[in-house]
């Protein structure tokens, strides 16, 4: 049997987002610009993953910095660090920490989808030969990264992995700790691939103290229409997802 995460839930539950319910309305997020970078990381990161999921092997993280020019809470930017995993047979990115550029967006993302988001200064800037991302928390940089030398590729070559978040959620009338699946759709308008570089990543600020990015894998920047859909699945974080998954509603196709 593949390895499982080894996160001790007791170390995480005190600061988890609290979902108000599992009936949030979807958000449409047109013309989003998404910078994604992937890096291999040490196996010690298995300790950051809930026991319900398998770590990706080799262990790797994805850094996502997105600009959403339209949303129900107005324009905002969002930066996320995700530790990649398998929920049963399905690739998933476990969100370790997220930063949104407005307090309204951070609050909504926490309450509606259980994202561990805080407000911070998030920027995504394009230069001729690079796309640069920065996150300042209380004025202190916790991320400086760039995709270098972007080259056009097909959006069809890009595979975004769905996310899971660890949150307190009301299920069957009782609030408990759950993994919440967040599974957006993407319609690509433009895609580029380049070399990922990170000059600063404060692991502590991203929920991964001491995290060392090792082997750069790839980086893409895409323009696409996307969304944050209604919640479809939650999973018991302590039980393999094959046994601990609860369906909240039918698939999006059935809506």
């Amino acid at each position, binding site marked *: *049997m593949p390895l499982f995460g080894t996160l001790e839930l007791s170390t995480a539950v005190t600061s988890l987002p609290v979902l108000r319910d599992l009936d949030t309305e979807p958000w449409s997020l047109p013309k989003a610009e998404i910078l994604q970078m992937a890096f291999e990381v040490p196996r010690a990161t298995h300790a950051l993953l809930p026991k319900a999921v398998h770590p*990706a*092997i*080799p262990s790797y993280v994805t850094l996502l910095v997105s600009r959403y020019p339209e949303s129900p809470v107005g324009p905002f930017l969002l930066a996320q660090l995700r530790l990649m995993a398998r929920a049963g*047979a399905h690739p998933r990115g476990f969100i370790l920490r997220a930063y949104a550029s407005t307090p309204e967006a951070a609050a909504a993302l926490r309450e509606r989808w259980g994202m561990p988001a805080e407000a911070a200064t998030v920027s995504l800037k394009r230069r001729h030969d690079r796309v640069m991302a920065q996150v300042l928390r209380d004025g202190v940089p916790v991320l400086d990264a760039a995709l270098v030398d972007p080259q056009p590729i097909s959006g069809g*070559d890009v595979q975004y992995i769905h996310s899971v978040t660890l949150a307190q959620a009301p299920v069957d009338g009782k609030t408990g700790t759950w993994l919440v699946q967040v599974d957006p759709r993407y319609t690509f308008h433009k895609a580029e691939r380049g070399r990922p570089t990170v000059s600063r990543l404060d692991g502590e600020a991203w929920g991964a103290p001491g995290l060392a990015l090792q082997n750069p894998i790839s980086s893409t920047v895409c323009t696409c229409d996307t969304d944050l859909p209604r919640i479809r699945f939650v999973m018991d974080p302590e039980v393999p997802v094959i046994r601990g998954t609860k369906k909240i509603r039918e698939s999006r196709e059935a809506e």
Partner: protein
Amino acid sequence: MKFGLFYEISVPRPWTRESERTVYNNALEQVKLADELGFDQVWAVEHHFLEEYSHCPAPEMFLTACAMVTKKIRVGHGIIVCVPEFNHPIKIAERTAVLDILSGGRLEVGTGRSATWNELGGFRVDPDITKKSWDEFVRCLPKMWTQETYSYQGEFWSMPERCIIPKVYQRPHPPMWVAVTSPGTELDAADRGLGSLGLTFGQFAEQERRIAEYRRRIQLCDPVGEFVNDSVSTVNFLYCHEDDDKARATGRRMADTFNYLASQLISAREAYPSRSYPSLGLLPQLRRQATGPDANEQAGEGLGLGNPERIIRAMKKWEAVGVDRVNFLLNAMEIIPQADVLASLRLFAKEVMPAFRDAKSGNGGAA
């Protein structure tokens, strides 16, 4: 229709000093029996770093051992990763020649390029170039096997004139194959006159369409070797037992285990968007078969899981869609006890194989 075995060498955790040795020894015992029972070929993969899924990084070693304990069964080196960071072309030519000699001319050579980030990243390979290096390698290999001396200047490797020795035992050279997982690779095989070594399971209609296109296309091929191998092979699971329900339940556990392990691998496309890997390939398909809407299909008629009558029906259907060879995975994570695997092989040979032997010899089917 010919039948063979296909080995990933799947080793479950916990890994003890003896566990890998036990899996290899079990596989060798199965191959020895398969040879005695009349199976035609045994294939072994080249995989690296694929924990539990495949502990088979040196298939030529395993296949040499197979050749030493068998008399007739052919040994399939499938597939050799034709990417310079994995294998130098000279070494490929040399070690395949030695294996062909030691096996007495029983070698089949599968070629491919790897499709996981586990492996490509591990060898620090640029995924963008693997198809190009594969194309270069497969054009060099037959010449390295057959020409008295050889020199080469290419994009991915070069060598001054040397005599590459030894030469292969088979004349003009062993049959060559291409691993076919992504749709369209069968056309790459056809264009080069190479056999189609299918590594996907099930889906008759899709396979029939792809095989028909392969057959049409290979008639106009420009062969990279000195002859055209127009054979079509596919992989399948095998667990044969008189009790159909028991066979299907046991076999289903094996198939699910294999697919679940496969779904843990990181496909090249998941990590590194590239036109070189335009389709999702094998892994998402297996993931879907493990848990998705296709899960029930695994217990369907296409698999070699069931009593002999059921398996004959499945194999006849594969034969009808144009498959020449079916290579079977016999176990995954050793979940089926070795004695049961051997019994399954014996029953298959006794009850299933005659139905196909008769058909081939024109004496009428026994089924």
